[in-house]
């Protein structure tokens, strides 16, 4: 018995002795990843996922809920915090301009790429030369994309192209900023390498030679504009400006414009064509261009799906936040609306007669007669059908309207014509008996006088671009959308090329590209005559530019917005043109309000101030974001900070 007990005790100690060096579970090493094409793809997956693509889940403003602006935490709200809302491209009651930036500093992703570029040559023998080169080219493309995200925010940034050891002497790690010129040239070099090494085709969602060229086209146009227009900012003796960290010698502008033109023309040699599949209905054709997964115009696309794991940020809520609830969506409903100021860029029917009185329309939806098809493809108006229901948009009733449009005084309560019960406003479902007939005061989808910004039709249009009509209303809920985001499409490349050509003085050639787009848009005048008259007044908010430009160049700029309304380009455009502080100078978006004139049985559309009197203002500080202050604390060589900080 005793022996037995001893044996048991000893056995417990020695036979089951625990090892402490456990094999870690759930970890992969570099050889597994870099040693095969599939492993590299897995490695690149994370890098693609973090690319600074300003898409459906991008917070244009610093994200109130924490997290990266590109990967925000509470990201269903991205739809109402989007860049379009921040820069007043959409009227929205939540967001205003934030000039402070959000501290984008993606050097962790850049390090991931640098690790690949540094270590991948070790594995060269495992690949054919073409595959090896293509992967190295792809890495360069990815790195250029991150630097593009940095350069357009900060100008010159530290160019880090090696893998640094964090334990190296601190002085070595304190990398100073490169000049803005060098930063853009570095982006050029990386993209040039990518173009030279990548093949012409790739699977969907992955870069190739033409994707790199498309980024080149956008980036070089940006650099050219900065070189040409920063001089008008009068930064004078600002240290960062003087040191070339913020701003580029205007003499370099044409160098970049030419690179943009070259890149655009390279893209044209690829297998892309403007989307015309749904001709002859040019409005539907334009809308479908953003929905057709097989669109011939797409160069690079970021796909989404509503069923992916939430933290990949590859699902979005765009549909649920752009159309009214509950008829069209099953979430909080519309949060963003096109202001009248942007509608006016397109071919619109007149709403005011030459004598100043409002035009009478027999039906509300007659506003669409004569409207540019591209506009109808970009916005929904009264009578348009989505998900089986028709939009119904009206703000109120005038018992009579004997006066000019100006008599409404932008919708002021104080205007005599709006007083004494002549103008009837109200909320949803409110009715009014006039002469024995009961009328609905408003449309079913607004515009409601007693409500704020949520789910209320401000103005006369809702956004159509990127709205997926094949979903049921119940499916349009938070994180319910999987519509892909088009990162680069040929239409944009044409606009880039056109603008760069015009800046280079090649005006007729520039308008060749404009013409192609306007034919597809169904514009009344496909190719306007070139007008070299100088002006310094912009189209939105009658912005007072600090420089003069030819009216036809302004037309090209406006064409860009007509074509790319709601594609998160506008904010960057008014920044690189150095006009943002004037365009968003106390900008109070106008709304187009539809009224029923009861005694006539007709409808009028009035140009009104937004009821909340919201005004968007950007200051000159917006052209460069400040270097993240925490980073300056860690590295003084990042100084001088950008102008005005």
């Amino acid at each position, binding site marked *: 018995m005793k022996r037995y007990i001893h044996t048991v005790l000893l056995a417990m100690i020695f036979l089951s002795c625990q090892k402490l060096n456990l094999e870690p579970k759930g970890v992969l090493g570099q050889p597994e990843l870099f040693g095969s094409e599939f492993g590299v793809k897995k490695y690149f997956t994370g890098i693609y*996922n973090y690319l600074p693509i300003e898409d459906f889940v991008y917070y244009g403003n610093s994200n109130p809920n924490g997290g990266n602006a590109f990967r925000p935490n509470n990201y269903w709200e991205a739809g109402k915090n989007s860049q379009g809302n921040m820069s007043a491209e959409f009227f929205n009651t939540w967001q205003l301009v934030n000039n402070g930036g959000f501290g984008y500093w993606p050097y962790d992703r850049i390090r991931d790429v640098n690790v690949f570029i540094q270590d991948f040559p070790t594995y060269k023998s495992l690949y054919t030369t073409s595959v090896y080169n293509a992967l190295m080219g792809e890495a360069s493309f990815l790195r250029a994309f991150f630097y593009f995200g940095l350069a357009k925010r900060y100008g010159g940034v530290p160019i880090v192209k090696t893998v640094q050891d964090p334990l190296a002497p601190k002085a070595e790690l304190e990398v100073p900023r490169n000049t803005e010129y060098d930063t853009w040239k570095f982006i050029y070099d990386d993209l040039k390498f990518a173009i030279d090494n990548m093949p012409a085709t790739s699977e969907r969602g992955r870069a190739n030679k033409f994707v790199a060229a498309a980024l080149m086209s956008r980036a070089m146009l940006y650099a050219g504009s900065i070189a040409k227009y920063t001089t008008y900012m009068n930064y004078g003796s600002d240290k960062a400006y003087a040191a070339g960290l913020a701003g580029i010698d205007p003499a370099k502008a044409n160098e970049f414009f030419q690179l943009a033109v070259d890149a655009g023309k390279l893209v044209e040699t690829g297998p892309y064509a403007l989307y015309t599949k749904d001709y002859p209905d040019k409005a539907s054709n334009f809308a479908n261009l953003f929905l057709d997964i097989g669109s011939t115009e797409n160069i690079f696309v*970021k796909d989404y799906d509503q069923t992916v794991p939430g933290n990949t940020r590859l699902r979005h809520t765009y549909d649920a936040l752009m159309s009214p609830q509950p008829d069209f969506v099953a979430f909080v409903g519309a949060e963003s609306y096109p202001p009248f100021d942007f509608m006016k860029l397109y071919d619109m029917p007149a709403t005011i007669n030459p004598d100043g009185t409002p035009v009478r329309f027999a039906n509300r939806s007659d506003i669409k007669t004569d409207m540019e098809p591209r506009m109808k493809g970009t916005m929904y108006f009264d009578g348009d059908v989505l998900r089986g229901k028709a939009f119904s948009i009206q703000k109120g009733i005038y018992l009579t309207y004997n006066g000019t449009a100006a008599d409404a005084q932008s919708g002021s309560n104080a205007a005599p014509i709006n007083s004494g019960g002549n103008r009837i406003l109200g909320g949803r479902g409110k009715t009014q008996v006039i002469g024995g007939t009961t009328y609905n005061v408003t449309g079913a989808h607004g515009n409601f006088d007693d409500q704020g910004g949520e789910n209320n039709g401000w103005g006369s249009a809702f956004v159509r671009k990127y709205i997926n009509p094949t979903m049921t209303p*119940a499916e349009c*809920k938070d994180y319910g959308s999987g519509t892909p985001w088009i990162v680069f499409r040929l239409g944009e490349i044409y606009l880039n090329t056109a603008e760069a050509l015009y800046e280079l003085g090649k005006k007729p050639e520039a308008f060749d590209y404009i013409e192609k787009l306007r034919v597809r848009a169904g514009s009344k005048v496909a190719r306007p005559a070139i007008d070299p008259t100088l002006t310094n007044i912009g189209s939105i908010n009658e912005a007072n530019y600090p420089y003069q430009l030819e009216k036809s160049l302004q037309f090209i700029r406006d064409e860009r917005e007509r074509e790319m309304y709601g594609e998160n380009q506008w904010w960057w455009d008014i920044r690189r043109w150095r006009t943002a502080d004037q365009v968003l100078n106390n900008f109070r978006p106008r709304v187009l309000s539809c009224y029923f004139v009861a005694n006539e049985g007709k409808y009028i559309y009035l140009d009104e101030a937004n009821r909340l009197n919201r005004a968007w203002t950007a200051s000159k500080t917006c052209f460069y974001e400040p270097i993240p202050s925490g980073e300056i604390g860690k590295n003084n060589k990042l100084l001088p900070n950008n102008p005005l900080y």
Partner: protein
Amino acid sequence: MLPFLEVVNQSQLNKYFKYAIMRKLIYLLLIVSFPVFGLAQQKTITGKVTGAEGGGAALPGVTVSVGGVPGTGTTTNTEGVYSLSAPANAKELVFSFTGMKTITEQINGRTVIDIQMVASDDQLSNVVVVGYTSQRKETLTGAVSAIKGSDMVRTRNENVLNTLTGKLPGVRVSQKSSRPGAYDATIDIRGMGAGNPPVPPLFVIDGIIRDKDYFARMSAEEIESVSVLKDGSAAVYGLRAGNGVILVTTKTGKAQNGKVDITFNSAVSMQQYLYVPESVTAPEYFTLRNESNWQDFNGNYLVRRTPAFTQAQFDPYVDGTKQSYNWMDQVFRKNTPQYDNSVSVNGGSDKIRYYFNLDYTKQEGSYKSGDLESERWALRSNLDAQITQRLKARVQIGSILTTTKEPNGSGWPTYKAAWLTRPDAPYYANDNPAYPNGDNLVLYDQNNTIVQTDADFVGLNTNRDKRYNGTIRLEYEIPGVKGLSARGLYDYAMRLPDYNNYHRGYNLYRHNPSDNTYTTIPRAVPSTIEKGTTTYFDRTMQAGLYYNKNINRHNVNSFLIYEQTYNQFDGFSAFRELLVASEYLFAGEDNRQRATGQTPWDRASKSLVGAVTYDFDRKYLLDLKFRYDGNSRFPEGSQFGFFPSVSAGWRIGEEGFIKNNVAWISELKLRGSYGELGDDGTAANYPPSPGFALDPNNVGWFFGNPPVLNGGVSALPIPNPNLTWLRIKSYNAGLDFGLFTNKLTGTVEVFRRDRAGLLATSTNVIPGTVGANLPQENLNSDRNFGYELSLTYRNRRNALSYYATGQISATKYMRTDWLETPANNSSDKWRNRTADRYQNIWWGNESVGMFNSLQEIRTFKTVPMGQGTLPGDWYLNDWNGDGVVDGNDDHPIATTGLPIFNYGISLGGTWKNFDFAMDWQGAYGVNVQYSEVLVEALAFGGQNTLTWFMDRWRPEDPNADYFNPNTKYIPGYYPVTGHNGRRTGTNGVMDASYIRLKTLELGYTFNIKSLSSAGLKEFRLFLSGYNLLTFTPLKDVDPERPGINNGGASTSSIDFYNDPITRTYTVGLKLKF
């Protein structure tokens, strides 16, 4: 009775068991059925009880009972005389009295028995469990507090943690909510681990490391005692003892010569929800909305805005044709029941002893639908066997099953949503109960809270927490060396929580008055089902030698133990959409189905633990302990650490110069300790290694046409080969005293804990352009220090014996060395850096004063006020005098984090058959801040608001122009609706000090002599209350409700929407056979 096992064969044993237990059960049934039972043969015993001290004075109030069975006895009268009627076959009498040694006297046929009692040193001679062993309290040298299970059970709560509240000095328990199944309370010892998130102390249950959640779900009935190791004495748990250790011992069977006790406890409680704010009625709501509209300076600039709600909308509510909808009443119950029943069996002989306990608890939640509830089964079986003369075995089995059900649409936002639902929002569209209202215009976040809390609509979530563990121990007395024994144990535990979330699609409706139709609003489609299971397997093995020796006046206790543990984790979940009407995974669709695996891990440790406890003459005490601890979470070569502790004590009271000269000092002990401990809590599961983690939940991209989701990898931090655990130095000094024959006892402690090697990454100093996912390094240091004081007074007066205990403790926390981004300038350093500073500073600005009139605003010179400023608004201090009030005016205005001190007071006693106890708990100097619904009128864009915002500034004439200097204002607590003067500056900082009557219990034990022969040994009825009274300066809000800044108990700002804490009233009974 029967010395079996050796002499009784198996069938006899079985027969015996059957007989003993069956007989008890029959008695139980009989007693329940027939409250009155016949008398058995009795005899009367009388006598006088005197005390040994005080010249043999008579002792009144001494309890005399037959065989120590409560309820069968009597008490002595003022002359110390008793007379007791006892069953003829009774064998012994038990005399007990507070402060005296209990005496058991054989009757031996006598009818007169006189007794002399002597004072006991009961309060100090208790045995206290101290980790791998136990010690007599009188020779204890570490800071260890202990509590008996009997002092815990009197607090009636489903969560055992809450039964400790206020009863142990230095132990702080905060209940965050009463949500069924949440077991949502935090605990810290001396503020150690109080942070965000809080890191609980180590829980060791019957010698095995488990966790806080296990302890929280135990049955209070099965707990014998709880000890808390607060200082260096925790060093025997080495690497994991950094925040102190809580040792829990479960009950053991008592040898009763084969007799069995069966105890049946049953309690029914009614829960009331404390501090549940209500929302305003419709006319009030309209009024506030209009006021908010009119005060809006931007909208009001030239033309007064039309009212948001017109008189026509008020009228139906005023004349009674419409009623406000009271959503709070419709969604929540005010009272909900809770049940707790347990049966325990305790008995055995000197060869085999057993304790079994089965506890069933059910708690219902506040939802009117009744779909929120949690039930728990806790089973424990402790078996002790003397296998041979030298070999003992102990087998313990525990299992805890908790099942919680909640509607899929409910959770933390439920109270928030109910508060925010407008009072003019109908429950049902057109008030037709067939059509739940889904009108987005009036519902907050388009949620109908009635529907959200009803599983018939939204589906049901079921969470099951299942824990099982089994332990076997052997103890062998090694022949040849007296006092030397070998012990070994093996424990295997598993935890298999699973969840089943049925997310049901349903319809809401909107009524269209124009054509009297209903628009269907489909919600939550498609229905989905998600199921998941997580598995935890833990095993622990210990083997060791114990050696105890007493030679003359030298006493030595020592042990050396080898211990190893292995823990393993894995988990997975599956998800499917449900297009057919089923709620089961099998019926789901293949399309979009998803299976997700959790990242598995395992951990291991091995350790050598040793201790030598020596005392000379129980007067000079020395305690040496160590643990040599190795852990798989650290890199090879630096896996092992040595954690020693030393403590010493001097019982001055035992010295002749006191013992012989100062009669009123019965005990006086000075002691001190120093220990080194570790903490691996912040280390990752594995030592850092180069590589990449598959991270498909966070990283992905679509490739291909059609697009296919590809999971990606995340780079792991660069390995730091020098990574190690936190190094902790713990200092403690204490004084224990007992005065007046130990009627007054007390303890004073001062302590300090220094931690070094807190993990940090150099992100704060390495430029971001490096881009590396930086390794964690042992960089930072901090310090906790404070004091504790506890006092107990016990006495008796005639039949009344009573006690009073008070304890108070305080802790402060500072960062000593702290790695942070270098300050840009001196004011940045002062404002934003934390190194070498106390960490309980609340930065902010004073709310200096309130404007009483527009005139005052107009002539206000100190700082410019905004154009919209109105009477009732507050102005903040221009602290730096630069002419503007902004963030640069922030300076320390209050304390945050830990309360300045915590305290508890317990009072209790017995008088004749009555017993009584109450426990108070309090905190002083604790500040909180609330936000959103709790401090903002019409939060979230004009949704409904709480009633307390009606006490606000507004014009006497509601139609007056708010900005006209002639407008007269009615003052209120809150500013004009829409202004935020109660949310900023010192106004936003609220004093949440409180004292709360946590427990009040009144019990009555019946004299049931008549039933004692039928087997009933005890019958007690009790009434008990929990959270009965609260005193706090905090307005309208429960002081324990987590806020944004309340001492680390809150982990998230949404915690203040938690299910409220409850007050409970309990009635219960205890039957023992």
